[in-house]
């Protein structure tokens, strides 16, 4: 396992020890996580009608691995664009497909549920990517999708949006039309 903790040490120690401690977990790079963290969830269901719907321990482990680590989230962000997720979900606001940055989930918003939606596809047009994208990369995309809604470690999220890195136009929204005096009456 390679860690950037050591290389960032020189810069980090000058500012604060607390930052160093937080930064370490954020910066860890695990290129080949164990079989458990790369495998598909075994017990996750889309709803809780019949009670407990997931392996809580597994879910927590996947959160730690893919939501708390900047490298994994950044990889997910790259893949999210590369597999044309942007075309349907935009950068979280949604389009053909639903928004991913709000709190509304049709098929569940936990990381293992998002994994399954990507891998299996969903009835109303979500393609099944399971045969196209390796399992670990689906987890990375799921981790990035979680970050769009503000989940996971704040320090692990991308520092800036990956698009239109410029201020929005001042006149972004149409103004209400108000009746005014006609000039030809």
């Amino acid at each position, binding site marked *: 396992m390679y860690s950037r903790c050591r290389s960032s040490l020189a810069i980090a120690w000058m500012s604060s020890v607390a930052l160093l401690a937080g930064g370490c977990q954020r910066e860890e790079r695990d290129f080949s996580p164990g079989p458990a963290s790369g495998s598909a969830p075994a017990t996750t269901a889309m709803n809780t009608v019949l009670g407990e719907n997931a392996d809580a321990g597994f879910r927590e482990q996947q959160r730690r691995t893919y939501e708390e680590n900047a490298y994994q989230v950044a990889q997910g962000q790259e893949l999210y664009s590369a597999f044309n997720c942007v075309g349907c979900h935009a950068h979280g606001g949604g*389009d053909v497909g639903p928004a991913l940055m709000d709190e509304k989930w049709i098929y569940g918003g936990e990381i293992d549920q998002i994994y399954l939606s990507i891998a299996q596809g969903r009835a109303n047009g979500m393609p099944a990517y399971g045969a196209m994208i390796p399992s670990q990369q689906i987890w990375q995309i799921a981790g990035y999708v979680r970050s769009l809604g503000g989940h996971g470690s704040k320090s692990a999220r991308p520092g800036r949006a990956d698009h239109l890195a410029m201020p929005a136009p001042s006149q972004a929204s149409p*103004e*209400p039309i108000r009746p005014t005096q006609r000039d030809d009456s």
Partner: protein
Amino acid sequence: MRNTATAAGPLLLQRALPEGDHSPGVMSRRLVAQAALSILAAWVLAPGAAQAQAPQAPAAASPPEDGNWTMPARDLASTRYSGLDQINAGNAHGLTVAFTFSPGTAKGQESAVLAVDGTLYFVTSFPNYLIAIDLSKPGGALKWKFEPLPDASSLGIACCQPVNRGPVYSAGTLYYNSIDAHTFAIDAATGALKWKTQVGDFHAGETTTMAPLVVRDKVLVGNSGSEYGARGWLVALNAQDGSEAWRAFSTGPDSEVLIDPTVFKPYYSHYVGKDLGVREWPPDHWKIGGGTVWGWISYDPELDLIFYGTSNPSPWNHEKRPGENFWTEGLFARRPADGKARWFYQFSPHGLWDHSAVNENVLLDVTWQGQPRKVLVHPERNGYMYVIDRGSGEVLAADPYVHITSTTGVDLKTGRLMTREEMIPKTGQVTRGVCPNSPGAKDWPPSAFSKQTGLLYVPHNNLCMDWEPTEVSYIRGTPYIGSNPRFFPGPGGNAGEFMAWDVIARKKVWTIAERWPVWSGALATAGGVVFYGNLEGWFKAVDARTGALLWQFKTASGIVGQPTTFRGSDGRQYVAILSGIGGWAGGLVSGDLDPRDPTAAKGFGNMESDLKKEVASGGMLYVFALPK
């Protein structure tokens, strides 16, 4: 500078019309109505001399009024003009709801409502029910409902919601498309299926949202899907059994585009050459190059030519596809018998901004600089109002009707659009202040031409954008776009307009500012009234001569449909409109998207957060009439 009027009253941009000054009072309405009637009478009694300069709809493509409305564009010339005048500028203020009917779906309702001999027909958004309503029963009772059962997987391929622009009626049969690329023929009396044909493959990004056109014994259908790398085509199905007569692709070798040098006579020489639909692309890119045919088709029976536009090339990032990208973002004239192309004109060579050229082509006969010309008028997404000789493909005029920053004009000698070098987008860079934006000066919602005033009534946009091309790879069945857009209103702050255009004088006569993009079709009537709706849900009747608001009614949801009018079984005139926000401009609302992301809904997220707060999704048919 604010160059448009407010909701309180449209701005008269010139004084060309005989009425001149008046205020929107009852008296003036009466005067206007009387003047309208006298002008109509003058036309009927003494056609020719006095009205020689006014454009006319060719009679062969625009038959006289019979009280029915059998195709979305009303007639083959695409006038959307009704000869009914029971509802007129003097009494339109008294319009009330005659009845309503729920389509049972709540995404964008874009269908026109047809009326044939006492029955109404329209298509809902997914799952694309075809609904027939019996006008002889009180309150508009359901006569029958046909369910095509489209594959729900195709919803992932519907770029701008699973909308449908309507059925077409011909000789006792209704023809229409479902979102998953199937065409249906349905018995108009019973709702029974006559035939069903799969015309495309949604797994390859093809969907069908357009309204077919019937020309003689053929049903013409085109595909959607240029946002998914679909290859565009127009197919002719035999009306009798749904079998395929011919298919004309918009890209690829001449043999598949149906370009035969002995028939193909374009006006401009740069369209001449072998297999330009292959050579003006990177190797094999034409196979995923777009140019779909999802808009309107017109037909001139005298010239025996159909006219239709082709959509944007795929992907939106133009750096992925060097070349002219033939035959995308252009206009084909073809023979309906064998599909062979007669001429082609490209509005936007090497499309830079997703300017699908599928808007309506209104066929008119005009006196142009002293000469009689058979033309078509095409309000193009790139911001120019084109007048084109429909026999030859020569561009007679291309005048801006919105604020334009991306181009400087159209060279009328070569027909070429002149693009500003500094506005050509580059991958990874944001080009700011591009006007018009990608839905353009005007998207698919069709205009109406009034035979009474000679004016074209155009629902359109006033939109600009920031545009950032990005890397993109083709993955079959997924979006193939490669751009981050961000939209905002153009000068004046109003995102939409509804205006009257004088085709001969080549300018706006009046215009009404609308807060949001105007995504509803237009309807003009012999009563001197023009109807349209807006995204807030207001359905409006305005004076055809002045644009003065005569009447408005707030429907349940936003309007993205196409108003029509007809004579009911009881002899009264009715006006029909579907309410139900959706489509590209309304998708933020009906898709419950999140406007915190400016790129949501392909750029509308940046400007529609207020719309989402004020309008809800829904679906409802409204039929209006004057009180008995």
